[in-house]
């Protein structure tokens, strides 16, 4: 039994507990918001310039390859946001902390948005390159399932009147849906499909030219900053809405 990891875990968790106080979280959110918003705007300006103007065209796909800079980061975010949502749900289930539940709730529509962008741009990219808007291959199907999981998660939140019960039911569903994440990631390796296998995060390093990798990474950074900005915004709104409903209830029951 080594004590060190547990001590580190305890230290992080006590630090996290300080931020779990909604008032502290709101103050932190107000302080972070301008930074993440301007980072997002700056990365989008630079990233879009490189993606649309300053990067070379593909020798086969010509300008169509530029869809990649919108499509691939959206796919990464669709998976990443779900992983974050599931982690927050697990934290909410274990430590019963409303802020973790609320961040999972706030993240879900953003993740669903990224998934939709990924599906739509994928269809627009597939039409000129594969000759079809949609094929039922493993990668496309599993991402579509991910989209439905996001929708089911959001619908489950809406279905309960009591936010505490809604949070726990939705958290269980989010954790059940985690089985889909490895399927999406490895679908291109397990099945021999039309969608190409991973070409950026491979053991041999990125298999894509640096002139195209740079705009891709810039756009990925921009998407991430966008997610953080909108998440902070939505989380603030959720906390304030929760407070408002508590106040309203207090006034209704004298």
């Amino acid at each position, binding site marked *: 039994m080594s004590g060190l990891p547990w001590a580190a875990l305890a230290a992080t968790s006590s630090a996290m507990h300080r931020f779990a106080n909604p008032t502290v979280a709101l103050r932190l959110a107000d302080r972070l918001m301008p930074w993440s918003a301007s980072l997002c705007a700056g990365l989008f300006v630079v990233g879009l310039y490189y993606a649309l103007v300053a990067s070379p065209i593909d020798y086969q796909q010509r300008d169509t390859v530029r869809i990649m800079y919108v499509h691939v980061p959206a796919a990464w975010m669709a998976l990443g946001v779900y992983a974050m949502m599931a982690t927050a749900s697990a934290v909410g289930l274990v430590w019963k902390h409303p802020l973790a539940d609320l961040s999972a709730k706030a993240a879900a529509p953003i993740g669903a948005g990224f998934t939709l962008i990924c599906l739509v741009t994928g269809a627009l990219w597939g039409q000129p390159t594969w000759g079809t808007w949609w094929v039922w291959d493993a990668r496309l199907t599993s991402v579509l399932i991910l989209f439905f999981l996001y*929708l089911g998660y959001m619908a*489950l939140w809406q*279905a309960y009147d009591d936010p505490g019960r809604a949070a726990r*039911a939705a958290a*269980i569903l989010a*954790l059940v*849906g985690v089985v889909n994440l490895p*399927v999406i990631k490895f679908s291109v390796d397990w099945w021999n499909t039309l969608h190409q296998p991973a070409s950026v995060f491979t053991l041999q390093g990125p298999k894509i030219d640096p002139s195209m990798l740079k705009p891709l990474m810039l756009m990925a950074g921009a998407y991430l900053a966008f997610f953080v900005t909108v998440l902070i915004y939505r989380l603030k709104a959720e906390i304030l809405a929760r407070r408002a409903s508590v106040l309203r209830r207090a006034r209704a029951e004298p």
Partner: protein
Amino acid sequence: MRAFLAILRRDMAVALAQGAATLLSVAFFVVTITLFPLGVGPDPATLARISSGVLWVAALLSVLLSLDRLFQADHEDGSLEQIGLGPLPLELVVLAKVLAHWLSTGLPLILAAPVLALLLNMPVSGLPVLLLAMALGTPILSLIGAIGAALTLGVRRGGVLLSLIVLPLYIPVLIFGVAAVDASISGLGARPHLLILAAMLAPSLVLAPLAAGASIRLALE
């Protein structure tokens, strides 16, 4: 173990007593399948090609429609709460109820499937694999369905929500169930697809009762 068997026996007795309800899901299975020759046209070659998919989709929907029987009635009359107070952990209660649900829904579907497959002109060589794939696949449907049924206990308009939650999770079973039958008909081995179905059944036997048990505990609060 005695408590487990008691719940299994009780649920089977309830299912048999409401014989009509059990037969209804088989009747739904049959009616849905007869719609396809009417909609697609009676061409035997076309029907043979889509038969495996039609059978699986109809089975999926029949199981989905029977899921509200799993916990809803017991929740409404309070017996679920009584069972929850008993010695058996809720996870095992779920497993017993899922087993009873499969015996009263999944098994009749499997028995009806070969006849309907012949009606759809499926080659006889595909029938053994169809039975095997359904024997592996329908328990997964009941297990995953139990999670959805438990999550939507006592929720307004739970039925629509249940299908939104459960159907996406059913898609893998559908894909490999159909792939197994098609592979055996076209002379390729169905073994890999059946193994994947078995590999989905094993973890869902363990994980689905955990998730459904937690959701029921939530509904009982």
